[in-house]
């Protein structure tokens, strides 16, 4: 393994490729957090009274809450008053086409390898690009509108579809859910809103690129996706961030609602700045993602590739309410240097014949700690519910940690639950076998690590699989492949 170790060290020495800052004059709220700031955000976005009231209710509750400490995570205390809670790129009257978008922004996307217009045309992907907190460009809107699909920024949805937002916002992740979700409810700035009408199969993958840009700006995205009866939508979320020395807080909330026979596929590639090789800086990522399979035979599938962030605290979950509904969670989490990830899922089985599948692959290197934390709960009415969970961890180097903490709770005798977990390093036998076939040490390690993650990577939509590989290339496996 000594060669393999060298690979890892080489990798650890690589600089974060996407670390640069675009200089755009931001429209920034004063630093700190209080009721005035909450009101400022709401006013800035011209929100209705009910939403302001909701934000304030959340804010007041948040003041009484304390940060959860159960994660296997260590970090310096977060100073919530030392952050900006609103910053928006300057806009004139709002861009109506790509031509109107600030060229500097487009340049940023170029550097990121996301040529907005080209990508949109070539790949047929509509991109609702979030730069800092406000949507600046949406494409392919016309085509989606034709089919009745609503794909807008959250602000726009509040203005144009208040009845839908009001009905579903907070219905999956209530404002009182947890410390970070409550904070998000109070200060969320923007995010994406998707509504797919009954029977419509969304003709393209929907994607959003998040990018934290202005200094000291926490990102508080709020995404809401509703798939009405018999509809289908695939949503892609990917992010990169500029290099920073200060820790940046990110507390997003994503809510999914799938009605009868509807299906939502939500894919994430997360590659925020992980901090340097000494554990300095990096994004703190505290995310609440939850989907409700409300309708019968509905289906929600989460796929995530987590390579970035200094701290990842994230548990995309499914509440399987409808009979015959299905929840899936596919995850690759790679931590290196001093990164810490505490991630997993919750599958709550309420309806009959509900099924869930969990595949989690954790790779840990350097001084990193990687924890899978999951819950599978079968409620008494969930007749014939099924769960299968597989979580595997791979350790590279003797200074890292890999941990598995699953909670498995069953209250129905007809339910069947299976859970398996393994932890190991790349076996000498496997390496030897690959080397014997003429592969270099580097290729062999790459092959094995890629094989280890394959089950998850192949769940990604085509367009994203490419991006994922690109991102992994600057992460762990890429360096050995």
């Amino acid at each position, binding site marked *: 393994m000594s060669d393999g170790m060298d690979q890892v060290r080489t990798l650890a020495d690589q600089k974060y490729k996407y670390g640069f800052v675009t200089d755009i004059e931001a429209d920034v709220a004063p630093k700190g957090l209080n009721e005035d700031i909450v009101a400022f955000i709401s006013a800035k976005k011209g929100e209705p009274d009910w939403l302001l009231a909701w934000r304030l209710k959340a804010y007041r509750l948040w003041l009484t809450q304390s940060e959860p400490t*159960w994660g*296997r995570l260590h970090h310096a205390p977060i100073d919530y008053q030392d952050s900006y809670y609103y910053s928006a790129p300057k806009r004139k009257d709002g861009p109506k086409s790509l031509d109107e978008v600030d060229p500097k922004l487009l340049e940023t996307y170029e550097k990121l390898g996301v040529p907005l217009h080209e990508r949109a045309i070539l790949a047929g992907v509509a991109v609702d690009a979030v730069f800092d907190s406000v949507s600046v460009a949406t494409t392919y809107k016309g085509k989606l509108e034709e089919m009745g699909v609503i794909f807008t920024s959250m602000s726009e949805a509040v203005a144009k579809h208040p009845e839908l937002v009001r009905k579903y916002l907070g219905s999956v992740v209530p404002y009182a859910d947890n410390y970070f979700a409550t904070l998000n409810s109070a200060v969320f700035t923007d995010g994406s809103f998707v509504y797919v009408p009954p029977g419509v199969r969304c003709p393209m993958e929907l994607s959003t690129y998040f990018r934290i840009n202005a200094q000291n700006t926490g990102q508080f995205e709020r995404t809401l996706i509703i798939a009405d009866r018999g509809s289908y939508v695939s949503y892609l979320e990917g992010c990169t961030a500029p290099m920073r020395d200060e820790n940046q807080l990110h507390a997003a909330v994503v809510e999914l609602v799938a009605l009868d026979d509807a299906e939502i596929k939500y894919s994430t590639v997360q590659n925020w700045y992980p901090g340097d090789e000494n554990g300095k800086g990096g994004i703190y990522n505290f995310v609440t993602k939850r989907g409700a399979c409300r309708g019968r035979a509905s289906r929600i599938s989460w796929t995530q590739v987590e390579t970035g962030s200094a701290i990842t605290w994230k548990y995309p979950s499914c509440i399987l309410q409808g009979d015959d509904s299905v929840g899936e969670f596919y995850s690759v989490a790679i931590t290196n240097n001093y990164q810490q990830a505490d991630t997993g899922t919750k599958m709550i089985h309420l309806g009959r014949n509900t099924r869930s599948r969990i595949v989690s692959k954790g790779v840990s290197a350097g001084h990193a700690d990687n924890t899978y934390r999951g819950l599978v709960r*079968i409620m*008494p009415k969930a007749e014939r519910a099924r769960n299968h969970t597989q979580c595997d*961890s791979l*350790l*590279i*180097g*003797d*200074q*890292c*940690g*890999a*941990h*598995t*903490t*699953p*909670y*498995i*709770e*069953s*209250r*129905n*005798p*007809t*339910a*069947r*639950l*299976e*859970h*398996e*977990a*393994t*932890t*190991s*390093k790349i076996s000498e036998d496997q390496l030897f076998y690959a080397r014997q076939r003429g592969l270099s040490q580097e290729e062999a390690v790459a092959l094995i690590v890629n094989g280890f993650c394959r089950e998850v990577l192949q769940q990604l939509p085509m367009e994203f699989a490419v991006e994922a590989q690109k991102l992994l290339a600057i992460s762990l496996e890429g360096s050995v492949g």
Partner: protein
Amino acid sequence: MSSALSSPAWLQSLRQTARDRLESDGLPGRRDEAWKYTDVGRLEVMAYPLAERPGSPDLTAAPASGERTQLILVNGFLHSAPAQLPAGVSLTRLQDAQEVPALLGRLLPEQGKSFATMNSALFEDGLVLQIEAHTDLEHPIELISLGQADGPPVAFHPRLLLVMGKGARATLVERHAGQGQYFSNSVAELLLAEDSCLSHYVLQDEAMTAVHLALTALRQDRGSRYQAVLVQTGGRLSRHEMLPFLEGEGASFSIEGAYVARDQQHIDNTTFVVHRAPGCQSQQVFKGVLAEASRGVFQGSVLVERTAQKTNAHQLSKALLLSDRAEMDAKPELEIYADDVKCGHGATIGDIDENALFYLRARGIDDKTARQLLINAFVAEVVESIADDSVRAAFLAALAQHLSHLEATA
């Protein structure tokens, strides 16, 4: 507490420390992660008065000793011990020890909420068993703890310290039984010196009205081997907690557990294996049958420290749910800081395998018998690894007796 007056100074101070800690830290409750699924706080047992030394105990629950060295505790008081112990074995009561026995209490959590602290503050006849180096005991030592509460409920706190010398080999059988309403909170500390070997068979068959908490902490030195079989069938609420520390290279730890619960029984098996030395092995297998409104809990944690390279650790929890009111909660946990390891866990929860049932039905066996066969085989397998014939037979009989109550629901 009359015995406290006559006890040596070191013991009085140990108790005082424990009492102080109990007062400052309190006892664990549902809000404590390790007690998330087993709520003892709501039980009224904490208010049970300490048991007095019983006058004429009923010993019918204690089996004939046969060739075993039998020690009988009643409500935490030593009732009887053979006049002649096998060569190489010595027995003392803690209150008779002039000095604090080395390592007493060293394996127990030093801070935080713990029932072991309560035990340290309140135990009566703490036993110290020493087995000299290279002693090879032919027959098991049997420790029987009986709870007897004929009138009002009582509480007691059995305590054992077993020290195995280098290369010693022994079998320890532990039985818990009783009648009436009582709360037994036992602590056993086992020290396995280099190359020693202990087989430890525990039958928890307490009265169905009893509450049983037990903590077995052990330290294993280089090359030592520990093999346990744990059967839990009794108690309205019971929890057996194992806390092994694998301190010496090449030590091996294994536990196989079986439990059968019905009515409103709550049975908890918790293990926390700490791998500190390289090349150690740990194996855990727990199998449970849950009927009626019973609840089973498995919390199995394996911690592999950075120093414990070449660790091999596995755990498996399998539970059969036989009723729609039964509940199983499993939390198999791995916490790993060394890279050259092979660790894994598995957990399954479900009802009887339809294919196996079909196979038996196709052979002309009726549904009820087929189910019984499958359930019996499921748990009996665990007991099969008991080497001593009479002990195995006794454990099987206890399991069979409890399984026979399940017929109605099975």
